[in-house]
């Protein structure tokens, strides 16, 4: 059995252990017991989210990155990374952790970074308390690498504002969200980010879920000529390419990966326990050198992944601009590590462990989905290569 401290985040400036521990304990208590059953039923539990969001004093998972002045936790990126890692390890529920991360980071930080004072004051306090859930489509977290599906044209003269048309799937939090961050393309080219309230006329949310990450809540956003006012624009008109898109991409690459550090630690622990219990050829599996080597390699992957991820997260605390290369590198490595650890843990636990009651079967499924989001290798590698080569 692996003591947590043996698999601590690796990097210099690694996550504040206390916030990680607090989140782990909370999640273990309130989320883990129902994880398998929520997964089986594709069920979202609002009360559970509220409990994670509201915990006071404690992690306050809804608003770690909202400044204290606006009712948030005012945590650093590193602390937030640790919080999400603890959530993943305690809850053993990648889907729930994704939902929390999308709300607390992907939907929150762009508002904090580019929102007008009015937008910040309107949205951030209620997002921090968990009363308002913000949603984002995972199609739009790697800039416009995937073909844009939403267009914006100027509102009818006099009225002003903008008219948005199109649809977006893979909207994490969609069915329960109060508002949505959406990037739309202009006819003349150029893209603008908008924040749309659920009440916007012409905006429709339909159910549409992938087979993975079932404990998250998923929707499809249909924009049927939605008219939105000018102050729904987030950042500069036509400025998404330089503002919201690069930020959203790095946020997804880093913070959506954080829970997987915890999930991987949990998987290694399960693998260690499984290898200790299982007998093959009449010997405990854990006596086999090949098994010991596999476990050593899995633990090593966890260390390395944590190091890269905390390096990338730490750059958000440095005051300077984080580098996209390090964020993409961290995601590339963590995604591969998550798949390898899930597969290794499965190999050591045997076919009996492949039921949705075990983390292993769910993590094996969800890790594949995780590896394909954030753009997957076909986006991450060119991004890294582009900055190495000075091309792209």
């Amino acid at each position, binding site marked *: 059995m692996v003591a947590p401290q043996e698999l601590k985040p690796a990097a210099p400036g690694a996550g504040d252990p206390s916030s990680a521990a607090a989140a782990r304990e909370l999640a273990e208590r309130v989320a883990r017991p129902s994880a398998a059953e929520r997964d089986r039923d594709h069920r979202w539990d609002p009360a559970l989210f509220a409990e994670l969001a509201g915990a006071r004093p404690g992690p306050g998972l809804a608003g770690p*990155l909202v*400044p*204290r*002045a606006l009712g948030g936790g*005012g*945590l*650093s*990126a590193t602390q937030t990374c640790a919080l999400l890692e603890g959530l993943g390890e305690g809850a053993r529920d990648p889907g729930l952790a994704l939902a929390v991360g999308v709300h607390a980071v992907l939907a929150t*930080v762009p508002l*904090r*970074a*580019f929102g007008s004072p009015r937008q910040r004051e309107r949205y951030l306090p209620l997002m921090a308390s968990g009363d308002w859930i913000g949603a984002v489509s995972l199609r739009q977290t*790697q*800039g*416009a*690498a995937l073909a844009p599906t939403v267009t914006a044209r100027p509102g009818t003269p006099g009225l002003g504002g903008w008219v948005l048309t199109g649809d977006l799937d893979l909207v994490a939090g969609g069915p329960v969200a109060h508002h949505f961050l959406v990037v739309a393309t202009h006819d003349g080219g150029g*893209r603008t980010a908008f924040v749309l309230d659920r009440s916007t006329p012409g905006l429709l949310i339909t159910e549409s879920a992938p087979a993975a990450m079932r404990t998250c809540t998923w929707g499809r956003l249909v924009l049927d000529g939605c008219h939105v006012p000018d102050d729904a624009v987030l950042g500069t008109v036509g400025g*998404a*390419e*330089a*503002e919201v*898109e*690069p*930020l959203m*991409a*790095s*946020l997804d690459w880093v913070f959506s990966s954080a829970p997987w550090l915890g999930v991987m630690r949990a998987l290694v622990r399960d693998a260690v326990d499984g290898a200790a219990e299982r007998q093959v050829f009449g010997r405990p599996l854990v006596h*086999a*050198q*090949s*098994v*010991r*080597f596999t476990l050593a390699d899995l633990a090593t992957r966890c260390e390395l992944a944590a190091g890269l991820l905390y390096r990338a997260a730490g750059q*958000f*605390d*440095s*005051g*300077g*601009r*984080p*580098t*996209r290369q390090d*964020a993409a590198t961290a995601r590339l490595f963590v995604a591969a590590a998550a798949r390898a650890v899930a597969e290794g843990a499965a190999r050591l636990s045997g076919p009996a462990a492949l039921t949705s009651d075990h983390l292993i079967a769910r993590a094996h499924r969800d890790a594949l989905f995780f590896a394909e989001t954030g753009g997957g290798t076909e*986006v991450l590698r*060119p*991004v890294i290569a*582009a900055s190495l*080569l000075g*091309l*792209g």
Partner: protein
Amino acid sequence: MTETPHGTVLSFPGTASRAAETDAEGRMPPPNWTEIIDSGYLRLFHPPASGGTGADGLTQLAAMEALARACAGSYWTATVSGLLCGKLISRYSRSSEHDRLLKPLISGEKLACFAIVEPPAGSDAGTYNTTVRPAGAPGEGFVISGEKAKITNAPDADLAVTLARRQKAPGDEGHDWCLAFVDLNQPGVRRYETPRMGLRGMPWGGIVFTEAVVSEADVVPVPFGELAGELAELMAWGWLLISVSAIAIAESALDASVRYAGERVSFGRPLGHMEGVQTQLAESRAQIDAARVLARKAVTELAAGRSAREAIAMLKIYATEMAVEVAARAVQIHGAAGVTRGHEVERLYRDAQMNVIGGFTSNRLRETVAESLGLGPAVYQPFDWVAPAGLGIDPAGFDGLTQSAGAVPA
């Protein structure tokens, strides 16, 4: 450990016993050549009509692997000359010239090389410049000028099967390219050796042609299309040659590992009893077998005159990279002994990497396989799509592009 081959198995005990010395001295000892000739190895690949013994594909394969296991460098030398150049000559040279050009290669009196690549160019034939032009009036033969590089056997060969451009007289509507069978023992030819990491028993280097003389009969025009057509089919023999070298190197590395694991005791535990080592041996066994089975299929097709280009492209990619992996495992199993100059696995590790590079590289062949899957030809587009997608600049911090250093507002 090798599979029972069909027909008779050749063996090369002398060549095998000299493998370390051959590597150390960086050239093939003459007795190796004698042993190869006496074994009848060079004759296996050609029909009796051409002075060969016309062995079936699996017999050819077994003999190739046997020689490559004895000494990979000697194998390359003999097989490039006797098999690859032999087949090129019998396909392209005038039959009237076979006695002069082909027989000496099959008998081993002469050594040939296939001169195709040029110094900077790699496998991109479009950039080759070596040119054959008429020496004088029609009938007075040709001269060839240009440089070929990274050519197996170049430093020692008597004959170069050379791919060259044709300088055409006005009104000549013939092909733009030709194969020239160039006698290398003449004033217009300078050769040099290129030092290399492995396969050191194989002569390897460049040829500089300066107005070297080629007779009328030894220049055979080929359409450029041939470079992707029948000529390419013949080059598949070259890929097979390399794949067998890789399989043999891997088999030798595994063989040495199994022996060592059976003898060596560490911390009171015989290596062979440790699951970590067993895993490495089992994975190597599976990988080598996978390559050999595909090689057997491919050689059967080729020897029957059928195309096996895709299968051999797959084989070359897999076998050469597999051999590097298997050799690296063998080095690990042997520990410090495995990196000591003169130790078999140290040599195998250096030799293995040569096969990955030899002939077309893996990535070039992956293109070939990809096209065979119906993906269409490679589409090149300048790499300029990351920035427009909004991923070409670093992100802002939490407080936007103008944030004040560091602190999170609280």
